[in-house]
């Protein structure tokens, strides 16, 4: 166990120090179908979603729906949330290993049934802004660290603000020599905090993602994996373990479409289903 920890620490340190700088083959074909993990989960914009390990410049639109049905009598409760999210990823310079992300929930529709009363509403926001830095890139491995901020702009709130920070490490590794399969994922610590009426509620939630990807054809990528999220403070709680499957199709002219389905299988989060459709365009730079 101790050796493994030491190895991981050494890997991270080495990455940070940019011990190696070989150009990663795994990141060179942005238009190929097996891009980084699709942003999932239920949090706002891309907050808490493990991002790509490779740099790039692209623009994507996500249409996400989540459903929660707690129909056990007498506690009927249900919620359906539909969100459209726009996300921009911009490499700082053409060859830069640093890139920015900006994401925002453009329009969120919520429908919540609480026993015999229900309500619905639309909201805009919140946005996130992130800074990502590739660490080491090997021919078959890419890693990056990132920091992301959740900005306190959400028109669906009645009072106060919710903001937060996220720090994470993400990686991607090709398996075999054909470039048609690999694994990707990452870990992050998110710390959303709510400031309402002078009171601050901060939680620390580690998240992790691990999925395998496979590209049976150059323009078709498939992936499957698990995501996990917990709260470590102030109330240690296992929030969710979700299985996820995704498919991505690379179209012409840098366009791509993707689909993600996540099914939470255990945890306190009562969400039953998350599904998302993605449409994106990637620069060929």
């Amino acid at each position, binding site marked *: 166990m101790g050796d493994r920890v030491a190895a991981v620490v050494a890997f991270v340190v080495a990455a940070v120090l940019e011990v190696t700088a070989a150009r990663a083959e795994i990141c060179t074909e942005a238009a190929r179908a097996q891009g980084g993990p699709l942003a999932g989960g239920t949090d706002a914009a891309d907050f808490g979603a493990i991002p790509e390990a490779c740099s790039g410049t692209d623009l994507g639109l996500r249409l996400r729906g989540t459903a929660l049905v707690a129909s056990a009598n007498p506690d009927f409760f249900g919620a359906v949330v539909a969100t459209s999210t726009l996300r921009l990823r911009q490499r700082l310079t053409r060859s830069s290993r640093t890139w920015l992300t900006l994401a925002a929930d453009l329009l969120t529709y919520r429908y919540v049934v609480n026993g015999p009363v229900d309500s619905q*509403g639309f909201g805009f926001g919140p946005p996130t802004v992130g800074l990502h830095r590739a660490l080491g890139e090997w021919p078959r491995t890419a890693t990056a660290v990132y920091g992301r901020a959740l900005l306190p702009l959400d028109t669906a709130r009645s009072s106060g603000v919710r903001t937060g920070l996220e720090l994470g490490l993400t990686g991607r590794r090709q398996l075999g020599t054909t470039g048609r399969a690999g694994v990707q994922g990452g870990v992050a610590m998110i710390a959303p905090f709510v400031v309402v009426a002078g009171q601050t509620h901060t939680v620390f939630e580690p998240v992790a993602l691990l999925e395998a990807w496979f590209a049976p054809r150059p323009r078709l990528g498939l992936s499957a994996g698990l995501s996990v999220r917990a709260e470590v403070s102030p109330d240690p709680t296992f929030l969710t373990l979700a299985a996820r499957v995704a498919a991505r199709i690379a179209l012409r002219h840098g366009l791509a479409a993707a689909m993600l389905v996540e099914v939470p299988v255990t945890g306190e989060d009562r969400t039953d289903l998350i599904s998302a459709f993605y449409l994106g365009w990637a620069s060929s730079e």
Partner: protein
Amino acid sequence: MRRAAFLVVTIVGALGAAGCRHEGCVGGDDGHCVPPTACAALPTATCAGVAELAVFRVADATARAPGPKALAAVGDFVLENDRLRAVLDAPEHAQGLAPSGGTIIDLSPIDAQGAATGDQVNGISQAAGLLPRDAVHYETWEVLDERLAQTSAGAYVAVVFRGHLEGDRRVTVVTRYELRACEAGLRVRTDLYNGARDPNTLSLTDGYFWGDRTLLPFIPLAGHGFRAPELDLLHLSRAWREWPFMAARTQAVPEVAYAAVPCNRAVAAGFNDPTLSAAGVPLAPTLPGDGLSFERFILAAPGPGLSAAVDEAMRVRSFVHGDAPAVTVTGRVVTSAGPLDGRDGRAASLLFYEPAPGADPDDETRRTPRTEAVPGPDGRFHVKLPPNRLYRVQPYAFGRPAAAPSSLALAEADLDAGDITLARAGHLVATVEDRPGERATFAELVLIPVDAPGVNAPPPSLYGLFAGSDPMLGPPHGGSPAGNRALTTDGRFDLLVPAGQYYVYATRGPFASLDRREIDLGAGEEAAISLLTESLPDLLPAGTLSGDFHVHGGASYDSSIPDQDRVVSFLASGVDVIVATDHDVVTSYADTLATLGVTDQLIVVPGVEQTPNILWFDVPGQTFPKTVGHFNFWPLAKDALAPRNGSPWDELREPGQMMDDMEPTYVGAGVRQMNHPWSDAKLGRDQGFMRMIEMDPRRPLTDPGYFAGNVLLRRPGAHFRNIDFDVQEVMTGASRRDWLRYRAIWFSLLSQGYRRAGAANSDSHTLTIERVGYPRNLVFGGHDRATFDRERFDADVRAGHMFGTNGPVLDATIDDAKGTLQRPGLVEFAPGDKSVLTVAVAAAPWIPMTEVRVFVNGALAKTVDVSASFAGSDHFGLAAPRAVVSIPLDSLSLPPTADAWIVVEAGLHQDEPPDDDGDGLPDLPDADLPTRPPNAAETDLSRFDLEAVAPGVWPAAFTNPFFLDRNGVAGWQAPGLGP
């Protein structure tokens, strides 16, 4: 780039600063936060009343305002100034729909002498949804006493309650009730924080539990006013409306009006219904980590009518929301012959509304009611209305429009609307004697129109509510006169009556003679009549007392009849023993009995009807959780210093647990009674336990997997099983349909060996909702009022030593093997080979009867026609017809050498209706529901007079069972359910 960054930083900073602004407990309850003063825009003027400002905890009975609904108990909090007394129950004193205290239980205006004028509030509590999990549960409190630390203008007293939603402690709720000097209402602010992980529809509202038949809620919205859309529990959001204020008026003394004005929102949102209104924030998803607050001003003003409360509500709105100051409209209501006879404000009222758009300005579905006024005894009225609008004024009298509406054009100046002329009322003076030449002390007068109302004629009502009484001499659920009924304490009636042709009845219950006069009253005319209603000698078996073990008064949340009228109605019904069974509160009527000097004429046994209202009990396959029906318990002692006068809190308890809870409270040996076992649910609240658990009388309770059987036979608490009640109501009120169903359930229990006494009770709530003593029980065992022994009486009730009746008098005996006459009861005896069932029947001459029925093991075994003895009697005479029937037991096809049970009935013919819906219970066709027979001039008059006095009654009496031990084996063996 820098500019953009600066912009982002500025926006983020501003938003962050907004979150940092301290604002009460919207960000959660940290134990220190305090919601700020609500309705801060209301001016805090200095006034002479600052000296009266007080906050204290209740220590004695003086804190209770007049009125049967006042419930202040030791430990509760009182906020009081020179205009208002508010009582907030301590967190540990749960009442009504709330799982804890911290709610408003009493709200009374204070008069010029500093005395509370009366309370009509059942309860005002907070919730964030309709399910039990969303009720607010307060746990702690703190008192803020700022009388000295502030200037007199800023002086206030407040109580802050802290808690959470019942089902989720992460959703915190803090409410501050504040009272300032000279203000007619409480400033209330509730802060809610959603610390849960999911977005939720947290409809933070005050729940106003009107309970039906008490306060009439009103909202000034097009198509509403006193009208309310039908509530559908499955789609409650459809009933959600937004309104500038809500008000309510009573229909009985003490006359109080209430209003609630939102302060931090321009409008309040919720639903409005005579059972329950919810007023709070609009329906919207509340995100995790989000909070909201709701500020309102809840005020009380002296009645009668709505106007005083609406006037104050508009004044508050003008300060808080900048509404244009209301202007005053004055005027006078007169009759075509001169001044109005106001008669306690019952004769007339005025509804002010903005005309409906379109061709019909008076269209009730589109006009916008604004306020209502009840003229004073001199006919004068004044109301406040928003300026610069057109209005219509509709006068009402006796529950109907009393003149064509007139129009008002209101500018910004006060307006004298002049005289509003109504048609004159008639005047009826009636004297009632109980012996020729001797005026009766207590009697009831009943009026019905000579001609049956037309099918399309709208019946009289209170602004569309509570129709059913014709004529409507007063609000149907208030004091006398109420609906078409009036009471007297000296044999004299002096009543205003709408012009018309009426039959006037004088009655003193089903064991006294009936008298009737016909009057034809023109507008402004007076009729003077005299009627005689004599007790019928020897009608009742010796040693019996008649008792009604299920009656309600104004202390019940669904009644507003004043105590004096309630007691007079008991006396006028000829009942000897009343078990006072108000919902969830112990009542004794001791003060009223003493005031009337009738402690020797009526025995009142304090009891309670435990009436759970919180939906919680899970029944497989049902969409909503359930409540467990209603159960009566007596004898109890009223403790005016205790919450609910000493009755245990009954929510979230199964019947067996309720029985456990009641054990320490009895004064003597307790009686446990299951009420109306198959009664319908009312707004989701199940009233009948057997219906709720879907009991099927055809199935043995011991069937494996039978949910109802499992529930009935299980022991949810320490001692009692859910089936361990002593008595079951077989008749409740007048409903013929219900009687047949309750009877089927009782028969099923008896056949399975669950020996329970059968009772017949009225469940009367007001003068017009079920008549006291119809039906009642005749308890035998050598009882009389003068030497009343409650313990022995209750023992006879538990033992089934009684007959139930809504008119016919029945006595049945069987001579046993030793030749001893046995009356019905729950103890078995061995009959002889030649034993005979002897049935004696009698009735007042106005109560029709045709047959005697004998049931063996639940099946009809014999019918004997006795109609010849009862036909042709003079309804208004004194001769009570009688018949005696002797039936040898061996003629009843008893099962050979097996134990059996027998129940005898007498009354009008009754077939066994079909079971249309397959639930095992008879479904009486609508066509068989008793209604007014053809007019007196036509045929089939036998029920005409009974229907007038006791609508819906289908004459019937029943015995409790005889348990026949015939098989020679020790003990009685239940026959089991039939095929």
